[in-house]
């Protein structure tokens, strides 16, 4: 099983994949910190969050495989999908950067995921609602952990502040993608599957403003740039990430692991 699988272009499937891939790709990035964090407690915390995110992605990919009508399992979807069929917003795939970059990306995405899981808990799809119920507890902890560090770093030393500002300036460019709707969102809301991503914007901004306020960090202005990972058009970083992640499955066709 080393050649790529084809993904049916149904809005429901894309809605699930956008979320599963956000969890998987962010988990992949957080896993890179293992053994390299600033203190041992953070090696453990970041690995633990990666583990939660991979777990969430597994549940979602399994569900997506069932809904695809193709009988794909979680590993076929994770390891045999081509880059253009990956649907995470670009923000999740950006290289891990320094610790400020990782922390602030976690603030942005854990808040977004928490709000998403809260809403998906009421999904018309009972399985998705059940996944959301478990994931919500994890996302709350992730948000708290990231927010605590954002405050320490934003209101720490001149250097930590400078690094936070630089990280935020880059990260912020990729946040509009988290709140733009298209036909996938329209179909999901019509079916009661989950919220349109735009519905998360207001509560997200309120929570982010509070966290960044406590961290004494200013919210950057909006730029004209728009990322497009959730439509399959990723940054240059994504190809390298997938090559690394998928290499064993691609190199050992028919293998059992």
């Amino acid at each position, binding site marked *: 099983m080393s050649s790529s699988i084809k993904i049916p272009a149904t809005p429901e499937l894309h809605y699930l994949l956008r979320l599963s891939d956000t969890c998987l790709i962010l988990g992949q990035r957080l896993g890179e910190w293992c053994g390299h964090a600033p*203190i041992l407690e953070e090696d453990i915390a970041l690995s633990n969050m990666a583990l939660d995110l991979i777990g969430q992605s597994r549940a979602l990919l399994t569900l997506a495989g069932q809904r695809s009508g193709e009988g794909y399992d979680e590993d076929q979807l994770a390891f045999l999908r081509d880059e253009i069929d990956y649907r995470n917003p670009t923000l999740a795939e950006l290289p891990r950067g320094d610790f400020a970059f990782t922390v602030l990306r976690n603030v942005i995405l854990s808040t977004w995921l928490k709000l998403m899981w809260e809403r998906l808990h009421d999904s018309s799809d009972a399985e998705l609602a059940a996944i959301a119920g478990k994931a919500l507890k994890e996302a709350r902890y992730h948000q708290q952990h990231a927010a605590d560090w954002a405050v*320490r770093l934003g209101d720490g030393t001149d250097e930590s502040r400078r690094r936070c500002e630089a990280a935020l300036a880059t990260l912020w460019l990729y946040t509009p993608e988290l709140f733009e709707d298209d036909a996938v969102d329209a179909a999901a809301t019509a079916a009661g599957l989950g919220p349109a991503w735009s519905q998360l914007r207001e509560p997200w901004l309120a929570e982010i403003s509070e966290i960044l306020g406590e961290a004494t960090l200013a919210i950057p202005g909006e730029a004209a740039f728009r990322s497009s990972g959730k439509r399959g058009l990723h940054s240059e970083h994504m190809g390298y990430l997938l090559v*690394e992640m998928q290499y064993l*499955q691609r190199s050992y066709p028919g293998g*059992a692991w």
Partner: protein
Amino acid sequence: MYTQAMDTLRDEGGDKPALRTAEEAQLQQRFDNRIDAGDFIEAKDWMPENYRKTLLRQISQHAHSEIVGMLPEGNWITRAPTLKRKSILLAKVQDEGGHGLYLYAAAETLGTSRDQMLDALHTGKAKYSSIFNYPTLTWADVGAIGWLVDGAAIMNQVPICRCSFAPYARAMVRICREESFHQRQGFDSLLVMVKQGTDAQRAMVQEAVNRWWWPCLMMFGPPDDQSPNSAQGMRWGIKRVSNDTLRQKFVDAAVQQAEVLGVTFPDPDLRWNEESQHWDYGAIDWSEFWRVVGGDGPCNRERLAARVKAWEDGEWVREAALAHARKSDLKEAA
């Protein structure tokens, strides 16, 4: 994971400090009696200075081994072949970080801070288990480490659960439980590859086993007749079982497990000895062991450089956390 026998390290001078007062002599006598009675020593109890030093060295080096040991396997987190294996590996490496934490905490009860211990690691004064100076070249190495390296570690560590120093013994009880789990996971991952996988995967497993076998036997430390410090460790109840006894126990168990896996060990002299009821094994290349312990293994420089880089790259983070804590304290005081 662990650590290698403390016997590779310099002699701490044993139990023979010049006792200056009658009170000290009495304390020493009471300590000796407790050790003889098999009692545990707690951090606040009086203990001979050399006992403290020896334990501090052993526990901190064990802690260092855990965190350096995160690197060779952590190397494969981003490349794990399935999401299940990725999750298992993340959890395992995270456990190792946790073991490092308990062990640093246990060592801190002896009066040295974690930062001081890390400084000793980063400056090359403290050692860590040299098994982690070997590279993980294929995915099968992850399974082989779980099966063989963790298997050897368990043989070494189970007796430490009865170590006379109670904080170390308590930490080891939990660590051993987790290590047993890791070993089973490692074995299981190899079993799936050899029983359900392809010829290419079977070859990958055998090749990894070939590379890890001898370094694993070295993990138990030099032969008993070349372990000058063992007697003192035994006397103090820090070491309970000799290097060669543990090594033999490991070989006997591993041979049976290898049969289940259908892999062989790279030792033409490995054969059952009817008389001793044990598996005989060939001569270990101790020159390789001493070369790796001495800093010239395949990955010594990379491993230490990775730890130092993580520490140096994180300095601004630790400073910021302290600066923020000071600001918060001032605000609370105001």
